[in-house]
């Protein structure tokens, strides 16, 4: 089980996250929703151990970082590094021996090409492949559906369900509400750096309604175009 206790994060005087308390169990898929700037990425980075924070993140199966796969919103690749080499780097980092990476190329990526030259979706798929090869127990996925094509999107959804069956812990975020509805067992609404609502499957519509704002944008667009 992964337990977040009173997690807070500030950059100077600017508070990003405030008193976050969440529990993620094995074999569950949790979704975090929120507007841009709500603090989803910061929360993910804190849980993964990529950012310092106040509070506690408890994990009952060892060192969390060593069993966690983190998918950034935009994966970063070095210039002149091929897909093969990226995957090999991830394997070396965890002392995992893989003899034939081609067999694990589940998205049929051109692994001999430089990863930097991949499209956004391909870069995301390469990062996801890397997380799977590392045999992680916990998956923290920031916008896994962003930029990928429809068939890959469905494949990722299916993959998440398979990982769930294998009792992995999965936390993800997405701006595509339907993707979250299809995948998640629980949804948590993050707003202004706080979790304002956590609901199980079947009650996700409540969060969707919360997120629908009054149409102030109509007024602004009218003022731009109509004066």
């Amino acid at each position: 089980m992964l337990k977040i206790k009173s997690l807070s994060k500030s950059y100077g005087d600017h508070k990003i996250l405030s008193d976050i308390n969440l529990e993620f169990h094995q074999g569950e898929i949790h979704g975090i929703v929120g507007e841009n700037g709500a603090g989803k990425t910061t929360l993910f980075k804190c849980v993964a151990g990529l950012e310092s924070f106040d509070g506690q993140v408890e994990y009952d199966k060892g060192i969390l970082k060593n069993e966690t796969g983190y998918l950034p919103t935009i994966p970063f690749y070095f210039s002149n590094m091929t897909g093969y080499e990226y995957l090999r780097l991830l394997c070396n980092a965890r002392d995992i021996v893989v003899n034939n990476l081609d067999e694990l190329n589940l998205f049929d990526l051109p692994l001999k090409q430089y990863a930097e030259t991949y499209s956004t979706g391909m870069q995301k798929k390469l990062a996801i492949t890397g997380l799977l090869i590392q045999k992680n127990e916990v998956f923290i996925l920031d916008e896994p559906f962003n930029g990928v094509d429809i068939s890959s999107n469905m494949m990722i959804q299916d993959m998440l369900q398979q990982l769930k069956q294998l009792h992995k812990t999965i936390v993800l975020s997405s701006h595509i509400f339907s993707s979250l509805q299809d995948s998640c067992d629980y949804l948590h609404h993050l707003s202004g750096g706080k979790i304002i609502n956590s609901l199980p499957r079947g009650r996700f519509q409540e969060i969707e309604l919360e997120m629908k704002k009054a149409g102030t944008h109509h007024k602004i667009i009218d003022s731009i175009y109509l004066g």
Partner: protein
Amino acid sequence: MYPYAGILLFFLSFILISISFFKKLPAPSYIYSALALGVVYLQSNESRNQFLRSIFFRKKFLMVRLIENILCALPFSIFLVVRAEWIMALVLLFSSLLLSRYNKSGFTLTFYIPSPFSKRPYEFTTGFRSMYWLLAIIYCIAGISVYYHNLNLGFVTLLSLYFLCMSFYAHLDPIFYVWIHAKSPENFLKEKIKTAIFYSLFLSLPVFLLLILFNPGQFYQALIVLGVGSGYIMLSVLAVYVNFPARMTISHYFIFYFGILFPPALLFAIPFFYIQATQRLKAYLPC
């Protein structure tokens, strides 16, 4: 104060290196100008030019590129003028002007350059692919040094191979690429250092063998150069993490350059950097 001290240190190092360059090398003005053009050429980097193109109209973009190239070439040209190498200074400036019109296009490579370092990515793998042309030049100069029986030039090329390898570690590692390792800071650093020493030896061994084959009496001197080079590469690896995730502080830079200019200081600088780097990495590699 720090940026000004950095700029001052940079110019002092530039002048010192330039002076030693002209003292040590045969036909230094040619090699110096080629080196300067290499620095100017770096400004035609594809991604930064794409960015500049996206924010400036064509005329302004070309003007910016022109100013950049002249600013890069100017210190080298001034030094050439001081050395009374008027023609080379003019050629360098004119070539820089021409190079400002050359901007790498945004085509994507569908092939890749094979790298002997693919087994253990990434510094040497990526560094080799971006600098293989310089490596070829260094090997050629090593050949020239043997042909003209210029052992000093041979030693300089051997050391310059290590400087080339050090440049592979000149960037700051993104936190993610450290975080992914399931290793203690000590093991992480030891593995990085081991890889760096092994791969740099792999690149420098041909030059080393060439030198001792034609100058067997200078075996120990060549071995010392190899040892100093290995010390440099160790220091460069540790320098990436000595103030991680930030860049080195001014005091770190001072120790770093002191170690480079006065190699016996490496015996102090390497353990000092190692201890500091392990401390800094503990936050990201809690084993």
